């Protein structure tokens, strides 16, 4: 709690009335501070809008539950509170060994369990229970990705599999037991040889009608289950994904409940488990590998919501088409992509809040002789690095909230939309996170390298997001593939587009004014027009390219594959337009004028930066060269306009100080000798 000498002197000087300045100065140069920390709250303008309202808009729901959980974590020593510069910070100790990180993660789960955090996570039904669960998971994510993933695997993957793939008998037996952690679940889908391509997995299950048991086997090394979170140390049960072979007929991928450890933690017979080892991040999660050697499980352990096997060994399914069966099977797994997308945004918020707060207190170089050194964020170049990422984070927050509601309120009719939206946003938001983390890390200079300052470490912790629950590139291909299918269907039937937000294709092509004025650039109409124009044109081009390739004898699949360049552009165009739409919708629901004006500014920044970054606008002539230059100039202006509000914008993230880091506050005190 020691305040350094010069800091107190600075404070004292504040306290002293000006007429005492003279006497204070006589105290001598030697005692005056070399560098002082001035909180950004002092140097920044008063908040032009209500920060709490903005936070409510962004967090969207269950604000009090979130704050309660932050409180729970701050107050427990398990969350590693550290006093730095007179403030408490809670950040995991990433200098712990992998084994230590895994054990403390499990202990943290126990603590949260004991305090009722997981109540109704599996047994609760309905909108409120679902939203509470998602809100609390987001808060956990802000503390530590490992903790959230380990919890996510247990509740969303294991629990979700039982909930969605299982039927009453499974629900009765497993849901409450899982919610109370009497059993610990994991999710054995990925194999060494197959990740995103789940249909290609090689684990085989057969049925023995004499004993009414399934028999699970790992036929070869590439069929070993890989990256199974929870498997290496703690999980007692798993959902095994496996080909189901009945009487020599492969019925495709099915899911089975299998116990892998007894209550004492001993590995069950005929199961072999190995560790995936140390990773570049997420070491609090015990990823393991599993082999099954003639593992026998009761017939009832088949999760049979889609298909079942009768006692005498007949395969029964209401869905005859294996493709459809697989689709029905995978649909509920979108929860993973939803939570990943949402957590990516909170990670960017942490890093931006830290980097921007630091840039409002750290100075470098003076630009006048004997002048004060300049605050980092007063350099236009520094603004250009951070503020567009801030605007994008706002935009993607609204997109994330839209995705969340789409997921929670999903209906069978919306499954396809949900699949496409969650794929697109999972990829775009996690890429945005990684990019933001790198920029923020660099923006903090050397301080960004310290793990106590979080940002650098978050790179390792969150890198996996672009891979798990579907590789980002594969997901983006799914987006353009779905768009192409929609296009082909609409053209073939000569009917209007009515899905994936492509309705704008039914209208006439938007016209972009040749001279872009300042007010045009900032109008929502222009902004949505130019995004729609790009999306529409790219979709047309992509459809033409694919059909031309097919005309030359290529198969539909390979025609799609060789069209990857346009496919990538198209996926991005779709995502940007979707994000902008959700932004405008959120904005339209705001009635408070200062808030609305701020959001307008941020939206313009989001759009103009997107225009500046995607070469497609120039390549295909949606923008003229002159217009592109105008856009670029406008970004500089927007940076200057947003700069005074940078602090209020990151304060609106609602992340308590304790979850940021020492450089976000008094970093001089935090690094002083006495600290």
């Amino acid at each position, binding site marked *: 709690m020691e305040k350094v000498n010069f800091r107190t002197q600075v404070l004292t000087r504040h306290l002293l009335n000006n007429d005492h300045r003279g006497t204070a100065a006589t105290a001598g140069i030697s005692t005056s501070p070399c560098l002082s920390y001035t909180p950004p709250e002092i140097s920044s303008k008063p908040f032009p809008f209500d920060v709490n309202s903005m936070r409510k808009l962004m967090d969207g729901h269950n604000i009090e539950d979130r704050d309660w959980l932050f*409180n729970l974590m701050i107050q427990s020593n398990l969350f590693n509170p550290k006093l730095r510069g007179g403030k408490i910070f809670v950040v995991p100790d990433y200098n712990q060994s992998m084994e230590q990180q895994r054990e403390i993660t499990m202990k943290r789960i126990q603590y949260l369990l004991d305090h009722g955090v997981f109540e109704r996570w599996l047994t609760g039904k309905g909108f409120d229970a679902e939203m509470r669960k998602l809100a609390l998971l987001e808060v956990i994510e802000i503390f530590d990705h490992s903790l959230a993933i380990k919890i996510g695997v247990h509740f969303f993957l294991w629990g979700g599999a039982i909930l969605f793939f299982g039927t009453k008998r499974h629900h009765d037996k497993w849901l409450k037991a899982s919610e109370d952690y009497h059993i610990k679940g994991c999710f054995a889908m990925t194999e060494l040889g197959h990740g995103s391509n789940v249909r290609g997995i090689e684990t085989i299950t057969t049925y023995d009608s004499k004993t009414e048991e399934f028999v699970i086997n790992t036929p070869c090394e590439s069929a070993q289950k890989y990256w199974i979170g929870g498997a290496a140390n703690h999980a007692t049960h798993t959902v095994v994904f496996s080909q189901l072979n009945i009487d020599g007929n492969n019925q495709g991928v099915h899911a089975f409940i299998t116990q892998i450890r007894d209550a004492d933690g001993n590995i069950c017979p005929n199961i072999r488990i190995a560790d995936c080892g140390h990773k570049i991040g997420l070491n609090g999660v015990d990823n393991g590998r599993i082999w099954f050697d003639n593992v026998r499980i009761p017939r009832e352990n088949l999760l049979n919501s889609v298909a079942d096997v009768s006692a005498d060994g007949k395969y029964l399914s209401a869905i005859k088409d294996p493709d459809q069966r697989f689709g029905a099977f995978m649909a509920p797994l979108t929860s993973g992509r939803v939570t990943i997308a949402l957590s990516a945004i909170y990670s960017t918020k942490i890093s931006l809040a830290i980097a921007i707060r630091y840039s409002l207190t750290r100075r470098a170089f003076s630009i006048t002789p004997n002048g004060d050194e300049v605050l980092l964020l007063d350099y236009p170049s520094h603004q250009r690095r951070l503020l567009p990422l801030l605007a994008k984070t706002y935009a993607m927050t609204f997109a994330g909230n839209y995705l969340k509601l789409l997921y929670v309120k999903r209906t069978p009719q919306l499954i396809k939309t949900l699949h496409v939206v969650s794929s697109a946003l999972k990829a775009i938001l996690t890429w945005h996170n990684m990019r933001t983390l790198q920029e923020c890390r660099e923006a903090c200079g050397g301080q960004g390298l310290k793990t106590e300052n979080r940002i650098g470490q978050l790179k390792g912790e969150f890198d996996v997001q672009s891979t798990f629950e579907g590789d980002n590139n594969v997901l983006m291909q799914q987006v353009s593939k779905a768009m192409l299918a929609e296009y082909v269907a609409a053209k073939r039937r000569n009917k209007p587009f009515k899905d994936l937000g492509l309705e704008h294709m039914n209208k006439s092509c938007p016209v972009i004014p040749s001279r872009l004025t300042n007010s045009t650039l900032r109008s929502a109409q222009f902004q949505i027009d130019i995004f729609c124009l790009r999306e529409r044109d790219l979709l047309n081009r992509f459809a033409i390219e694919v059909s031309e390739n097919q005309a030359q004898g290529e198969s539909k699949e390979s025609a799609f594959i060789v069209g990857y360049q346009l496919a990538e552009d198209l996926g991005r165009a779709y995502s940007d337009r979707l994000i902008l739409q959700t932004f405008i919708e959120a904005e339209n629901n705001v009635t408070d004028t200062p808030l609305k004006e701020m959001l307008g500014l941020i939206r313009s920044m989001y759009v103009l930066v997107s225009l500046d970054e995607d070469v497609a606008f120039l390549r295909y002539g949606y923008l003229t060269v002159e217009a592109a230059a105008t856009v670029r100039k406008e970004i500089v202006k927007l940076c200057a306009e947003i700069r005074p509000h940078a602090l209020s914008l990151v304060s609106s993230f609602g992340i308590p100080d304790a979850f940021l880091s020492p450089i976000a506050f008094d970093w001089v005190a935090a690094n002083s000798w006495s600290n």
Partner: protein
Amino acid sequence: MASYSTANDQILIEEKSSVRKFTLNRPKQLNVLSLAMGSRFWELYSECAKDSSVKLIIVKGKGRAFCAGGDVAEVIRDISQGNWRAGTLHYKYGFMMNYLLKIHNKPQVAFINGIVMGGGSSVSINGRFQVVTENTVFAMPETALGSFPDLSASYYLSRLPGFFGEYLGLTGARLSGAEMLACGLATHFVPSEKLSLLEEALEKIDTSDPFVISSTINKFSEVPNLKEKSAYHKLDIINKCFSQRTIEEIIAALEREAAENKEDWFSNFSIKLMKKASPTSLKITLRSIREGRYQGIGQCIVREFRMICHVLRGDISTDFYEGCRAILLDKDGNPKWEPSKIELVTDEMVDRYFTKIDEDDWDDLVLPAFAFSKL
């Protein structure tokens, strides 16, 4: 700012070498802080901060109390002669002096040899060192008075181990000196007979170095035993119950605990205390501590000032006046709270305590700019 230090025999001031000693001198009233004392303290702390010859401050109370809180009777009298705004001046000085105490650079040693309650706790805890004795009795009794722990209490209560701060703030339960030391509300335990020797020793050190001061006090200090029936031994139950999200859930958790553990005194004791308190007070106190956990000292003070203004204004509930009537004036010990039940206090009502007072020419407490340094 105008001076209210006319009755300045209420604080005795001694200058010994580089030490300033302030003695609260209203022993009959258990040294409750009057408006005059608050403003005088504010002046004294301002002067000490400026005066480089002052290196250490000692604050103590005359008689059997260190300080039993704010002079509520005086507040009520001032309000009855004017309007609610008249009462806010007390708090304004109280907040300002505590703010100064917390952020200025002169270490203070508080000799808490007796009762320390409510706002009186702030005067000691916001300083650097707190010396307690076998005579010390601590409590935050505000919820039983229809108010809430203020003068920055949401800052320091929220920073106690686990959810001990919620326990103290909501129940108003008493602590001994040993318990204060255990939970971090005090830095040293010194037997009362050694206090005068300690005082002499501190007069001689002539330094602001906290390490030197601390080791000087250490020479006289002891490690006291916690009594067996100490709430601090119940930290696991406290953490389990007082970590709950709402007052309703906290009470339900305590009731579960009481049902499961019939011999245990603690849960029923806590329930009893909370049932006596104002339901509105309980809810705003919980919210205040929870928010205080995220906020810096300056933010806590500005927010608490808003809250106390609502309390004095009586626009949401008049429990404060009812509490003062029942406990301090009529002394029937039987306040009629309104709303009378916890579940009748809505979130919307609680929210309003945290909003700016909507009246012409009324402003939030303005602290010097560095209030927001989030210390």
